[in-house]
């Protein structure tokens, strides 16, 4: 029966080519636009570390002074150095790391290469196992290296290729800000999108090229970058040669991540943070009421709205557009089916049931959807190509994968079937007697 209806549908298309083309075109446009924006949205709102995103938590507390305090607001976005170092020392999580972005001058020893300024990350030992960074050679550094301010570095494959022409460079040394650093590890490609561990920069930018122990970076006075929020200057920090980057500076500029493997540990850790914050207030360091937050990766990304507003807006826009296209299809299908009232009357008179007419109409609608989906897929590919030409940092990520390919057809067929429901129902209501009489 299905094959027969399909054949009828094709015949009907041939009879009315312009109208059919119009419907296919409208559906294709709507599907193409929606799939383009949906793909972009899906890529951008994806989980950057799916295997353990629910076990990694971003820590926040509220060390700022009372100036500008409003109850109910989120705690300070980043952590002060004093608190980061204290939490790291007490090490209550399964793993933990503090970190900041920086910028250093690297001078490769290879002849003919100019010195270059590269982004770096100053962090602590657990960073590598906690975020599961893939290592091509060697390993990360140890906690002892952290504490002894060891001059060690982990570099990316890209920097390794550039500076050493690839190969196992573990043990070699690299000049960073005029200091020799020993390479302990070379990373394989690692490019989480978004760069969830630090949301203060470009969310979809490149990961840093060189990683060094945090305290080493401070000992060598390397330049940090990213956001810094300072409140008042406590007296004891006045003579700190490190200024705003000192342990006691009243500035928040570090990211602190902790790995907690079970829900019980999460609850414990939250209690621990509350305790810590209470103690700091009792000691006079904190002034604001205790306000701590522990957010897993996806919550943290959501809080920071890493999906650009323009992308959300585009998604809404394309859904609205698809809706108009579908309304259009409903109208045209109605016209098409009712134009065949006479034919339907004859079929009904010859014994076809209402269900049969209904099914026949839906098959026709679904076939249009299939054709619309095919064309829509081409349009989506075109749309994504256009997105990739955009200046945004996320642009190169906009590609169609298998899931979205299937989703395109499902969306096209489902929406065209939905669009076909009303016209098909109206068509099967055709009273055969009247139609036959007017013939």
């Amino acid at each position, binding site marked *: 029966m299905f094959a027969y209806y399909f054949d009828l549908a094709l015949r009907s298309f041939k009879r009315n080519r312009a109208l059919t083309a119009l419907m296919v075109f*409208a559906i294709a446009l709507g599907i193409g636009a929606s799939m383009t924006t949906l793909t972009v949205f899906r890529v951008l709102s994806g989980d950057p570390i799916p295997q353990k995103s629910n076990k990694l938590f971003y820590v926040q507390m509220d060390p700022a002074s009372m100036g*500008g305090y409003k109850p109910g607001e989120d705690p300070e976005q980043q952590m002060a150095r004093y608190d980061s170092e204290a939490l790291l020392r007490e090490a209550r999580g399964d793993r933990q790391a503090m970190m900041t972005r920086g910028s250093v*001058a690297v*001078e490769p020893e290879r002849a003919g290469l100019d010195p270059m300024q590269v982004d770096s990350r100053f962090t602590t030992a657990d960073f590598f196992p906690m975020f599961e960074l893939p290592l091509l050679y060697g390993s990360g550094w140890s906690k002892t290296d952290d504490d002894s301010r060891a001059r060690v570095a982990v570099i990316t494959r890209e920097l390794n290729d550039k500076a050493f022409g690839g190969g196992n460079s573990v043990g070699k040394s690299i000049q960073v800000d005029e200091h020799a650093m020993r390479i302990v590890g070379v990373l394989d490609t690692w490019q989480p999108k978004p760069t969830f561990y630090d949301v203060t920069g470009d969310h979809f930018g490149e990961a840093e090229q060189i990683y060094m122990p945090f305290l080493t970076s401070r000992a060598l006075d390397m330049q940090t970058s990213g956001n810094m929020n300072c409140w008042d200057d406590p007296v004891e920090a006045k003579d700190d040669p490190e200024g705003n980057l000192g342990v006691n500076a009243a500035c928040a500029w570090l990211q602190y991540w902790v790995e907690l493997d079970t829900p019980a540990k999460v609850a414990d850790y939250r209690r621990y943070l509350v305790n810590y914050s209470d103690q700091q207030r009792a000691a006079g360091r904190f002034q604001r009421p205790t306000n701590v937050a522990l957010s897993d990766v996806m919550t943290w990304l959501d809080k920071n709205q890493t999906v650009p507003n323009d992308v959300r807006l585009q998604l809404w*826009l394309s859904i609205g557009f698809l809706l*108009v296209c579908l309304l*259009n299809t409903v109208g045209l299908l109605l*016209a098409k089916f009712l*134009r065949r009232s006479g034919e339907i009357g004859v079929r009904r008179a010859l014994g076809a049931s209402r269900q049969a007419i209904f099914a026949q109409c839906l098959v026709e609608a679904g076939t249009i959807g299939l054709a619309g989906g095919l064309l829509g897929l081409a349009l989506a590919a075109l749309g994504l190509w256009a997105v990739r030409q955009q200046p945004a940092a996320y642009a190169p990520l906009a590609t169609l994968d298998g899931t979205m390919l299937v989703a395109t057809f499902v969306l096209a067929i489902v929406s065209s079937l939905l669009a076909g429901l009303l016209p098909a129902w109206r068509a099967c209501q055709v009273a055969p007697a009247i139609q036959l009489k*007017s013939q």
Partner: protein
Amino acid sequence: MDIRPIFSTLLRHKTASALIVLEIALSCAIVCNAVFLIATRLERMDRPTGLAANEIVSIEMTGIGKNDNPDALVQQDLAALRAIPGVKAATRTNQIPFNNESWNSSINLVKDQRDPTVNASVYMGDTSFLDAFGLKLVEGRNFSVDEVLAWGALDKPGANPSFPSTIVTRALAQKLFPGESALGKRIYSWGNDPTRIVGIVDTLIRPNDQEGPASSQYSFILPVSAAPGPYVLRTDVARRDEVLKAGIAALEGVNSRRILMRQQTFTDVIDKYYRQDRAMAWLLVSVIVALLVVTALGIVGLASFWVQQRTKQIGVRRALGATRGQILRYFQTENFLLATIGIVLGMLFAYAINQLLMGLYELPRLPLYYLPIGAVMLWLLGQIAVFGPARRAAAVPPAVATRSA
């Protein structure tokens, strides 16, 4: 022309009429909002920066390792840059607008105030700053040489800088001292000592939009030389590339142990900053066009169907003496009626969508004058779309009435 028969015909085609009305309504709502969004983007891109945008180039260098006397190096650099033919003014500042960096500070009117009066962006520069940026001084004076502090002294541990003077934007002056002249008034920002406002510039935009559109012109300038940041050179429009090249060569000549980070004309900086807005505006334009095309095609399709369905009635009317013009106008009026209902409904939808967007994306309220824009667009569209089918209807010969179906 009597519209009663048109109404009664439409009532006999309720579903199809409702569909076309709904389609027009949705299109109208989306078009109104899209046009409004485009206008917001254009308005944003059109904001004055206060700078002589076409005449400015900037160069950023970073040294390798620590320099013992960075202040002296900057002075040497500036001397070399000012000697380049074609350079009208040169300064070193901490930030230029739209360049991915932003320095901000809260401003108090009273010492040790708990909640700051306002948050504003801090620019730092020497006596050449106003000239190099091309800012328009509307009140007061420029910094004097003895007011300028060197960055090296401010950056020292335990430094408690005391700035004798600052220059603020007109918008910031009005925010701080509404209804009175800000000139000569004292503010507290950096350090414990008050700073006197000695000059007011017309406009100087903040480096980015993080603090929202209302405070986009809240900036002030502190007299600091050799702040970490770019060199800013002002030259003739035509000589920008030449000056950039000569500037880099001059800086390399002063000290070669450094890396060139960025060299750009300010128009390129602006261009890059608004690229996303421009892309979005074009996207919205294409959505509007696609929507209108789809809606028009929908109207054509349905109108053609109605014309075909009513061929016999048209024949009868023609046989009874109706002119071609009357048939044509019948279909045009019918479309006008449908479009009108759709537009009225569409305006309600437009407002609802705007409310939703206001809540989600902090967009402003849709001004009322956008509604007629959408209305006129869809009326025109409807008339254009229905013209073809209506002409075909008018061409139906009266003889059709005499034939059986």
